């Protein structure tokens, strides 16, 4: 589904990603871990097409197509979804209005008929159960005045509505209390199936207790420093990132800027 080859990217001329290789197949859950500044959020944003990040080298194929040539909204309509670490507020635009527009854009793209507001309302009501959100959220402006936890739940609600093929969750666990984390993780598990893939970008192992990954990749200094199964996350929890970064430094791989 997704094939990343020797991906290099920089922001404001500073190289962040220095050669990432990663393959993701449908049905899989991948966790991207790593210390602060290792490039994991950058990877998520590059995949979603954030304009501030410049790809300097490498290739990304998504369903056989060149992903890097697509505009962010094209990628979204093709099924890539990113849950933002800091969801953006859009004053004056209601959640329902926004979701219906996004949903219908996708349907149009797939050659399907658009849903009218009433039909969409039913769908939204159904999907909102996934993240235990009540109807009052739908009439409020997108993310405006939402608490941190509400914003994250709203991201998962959007995921539930848009049904992506590839969902990238950027630090979705950060700033969540245990109840919200349980709801968010429950939502993701409910939405995951053999036809789609999930990428979890996270600093902590905690989230992985709720969403169990098939593969764990540890980033350090803009490269994948170590890969393994879910047990790698537990090992990290025990030994900390220093264990990886120091071994990276020792082996001389990309250790220049790790905090």
């Amino acid at each position, binding site marked *: 589904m997704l094939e990343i080859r020797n991906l290099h990217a920089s922001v404001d001329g500073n190289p962040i990603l220095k050669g990432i290789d990663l393959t993701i197949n449908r049905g899989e859950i991948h966790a991207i871990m790593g210390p602060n500044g290792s490039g994991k959020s950058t990877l998520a944003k590059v995949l*979603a*097409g*954030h*304009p*501030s990040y410049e790809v300097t080298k490498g290739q990304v194929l998504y369903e056989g197509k060149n992903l890097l040539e697509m*505009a*962010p*909204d094209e*990628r*979204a*309509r093709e099924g890539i*979804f*990113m849950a*933002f670490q800091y*969801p*953006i*507020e*859009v*004053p*004056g*635009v209601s959640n329902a209005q*926004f979701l219906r*527009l*996004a949903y219908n*854009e*996708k349907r149009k*793209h797939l050659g399907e008929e658009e849903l009218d507001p009433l039909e969409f309302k039913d769908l939204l009501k159904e999907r909102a159960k996934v993240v235990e959100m009540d109807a009052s959220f739908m009439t409020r*402006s997108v993310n405006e005045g939402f608490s941190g936890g509400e914003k994250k739940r709203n991201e998962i609600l*959007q995921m539930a509505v*848009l049904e992506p093929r590839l969902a990238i969750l950027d630090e979705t666990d950060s700033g969540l209390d245990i109840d919200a984390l349980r709801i968010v993780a429950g939502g993701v598990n409910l939405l995951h199936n053999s036809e789609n893939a999930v990428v979890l970008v996270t600093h902590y192992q905690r989230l992985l207790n709720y969403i169990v990954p098939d593969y764990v990749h540890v980033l350090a200094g803009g490269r994948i420093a170590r890969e393994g199964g879910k047990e790698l996350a537990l090992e990290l929890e025990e030994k900390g990132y220093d264990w990886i970064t120091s071994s990276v430094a020792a082996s001389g791989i990309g250790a220049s800027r790790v905090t």
Partner: protein
Amino acid sequence: MSTAENLVSQEYKYGFVTDIESDTIPRGLSEETVRLISEKKNEPEWMLGFRLKAFRHWLTMTEPKHWPNLTYPEINYQDMIYYSAPKQKALKANLDEVDPELLKTFEKLGIPLQEQKQLAGVAVDAVFDSVSVATTYKEKLKKHGVIFCSFSEAIREYPDLVRKYLGTVVPTNDNFFAALNSAVFSDGSFCFIPKGVRCPMELSTYFRINNSESGQFERTLIVAEEGSYVSYLEGCTAPKFDKNQLHAAVVELVALDDAQIKYSTVQNWYAGDEEGRGGIYNFVTKRGKCAGHNSKISWTQVETGSAITWKYPSCILLGDNSIGEFYSVALTNHAQQADTGTKMIHLGKNTRSTIISKGIAAGKSNNSYRGLVKVMPKAENSRNYTQCDSMLIGSNSGANTFPYIEVMNNSSAVEHEASTSKISEEQLFYLQQRGISQEDAVSLIINGFCKDVFLQLPMEFAVEAQRLLGMKLEGSVG
């Protein structure tokens, strides 16, 4: 963000000219011109007197060039035509007698004048250059006691009512442009809602400037008697000419005890081209008097057209417990300039006013909010809330806020807030990440920004306004 920058702006679709024979007086302005206009309209002596008084006063006044944040070349008031009317029979018994060319024009503008083709809930007075060519649903309205007709007709048919209220809200010597209008105004609409009547349909006037050499000076007077209610809509367009044209209108509203007037405008005069050539100079005086207790006047405006907008729809809150509202969206693009806002003059006790202004400046345009909130000593327990938000699109535009707040008693409270924002790259990316195209994302964000104002518009108008905004902004985000 540079993709949208190159999108081609959509053409101004109302820019066509109607080829029609007109009865036009020679250009220039003198006492003779004023007499000639009055004569053409067969006006009574008192009306001529009103005009002459205004004209003589106008001669002593100077154009307000210093305080507005506007720059434009000298207007030559002698190089303009003050009366131009499409030639047709003097009195139109029914629509069949209206020149088909005119009917076609309004149809093309989306304002069919045949009642059967219209939206059932809206009565229209169609004004073409200097005259009203048709007013629909007059008879139906008359059954409810509502008078809705052209101003000329009102002077002929309801002289006492017109005399009683004309110039009582905007005196002939109020300001330079109001004095000019009072001297030479040609037509406009008159609405009278009798005591206790809730006007059964929306009343609307559609203004069209067609002649490239003429100015338009319309006059609107709306009187809502005790306990009545009316919602009035106003729309305007003009053909594309390289020359600037002057539009100096006066609108007077009077609300008696417990009456309510809701006045909505979507102003889409020709704005000039990208370089600022041509376009309407829109110098308008609009004012409402809440004369009675518990009366309410609400102005909603969506200003997207005109090369220059100078306009401050205001409320004089004379009656105790009266309410004034001003909701405004002003969008400027390319070389447009707008200096617009409101005045809320609190005179009565427990008076309330709300001002919500949203200014959007794109291209190299300049957009200013100018407002006055004045609470007089006797206006005890009065309240005002003002919120002025500006959005800048691109780094060559300007957004300004000039609020004047004057409070003269200690039981009233006035609150003013203003902010400036832009469409952030992060916001656009977020929406795009959800599959929404950049243009749609921009229009979504702008509509969200203007939501509080659009909510005030009657439904058809709100749709039109949203569409207009999206259209006007195409190509401006980069």
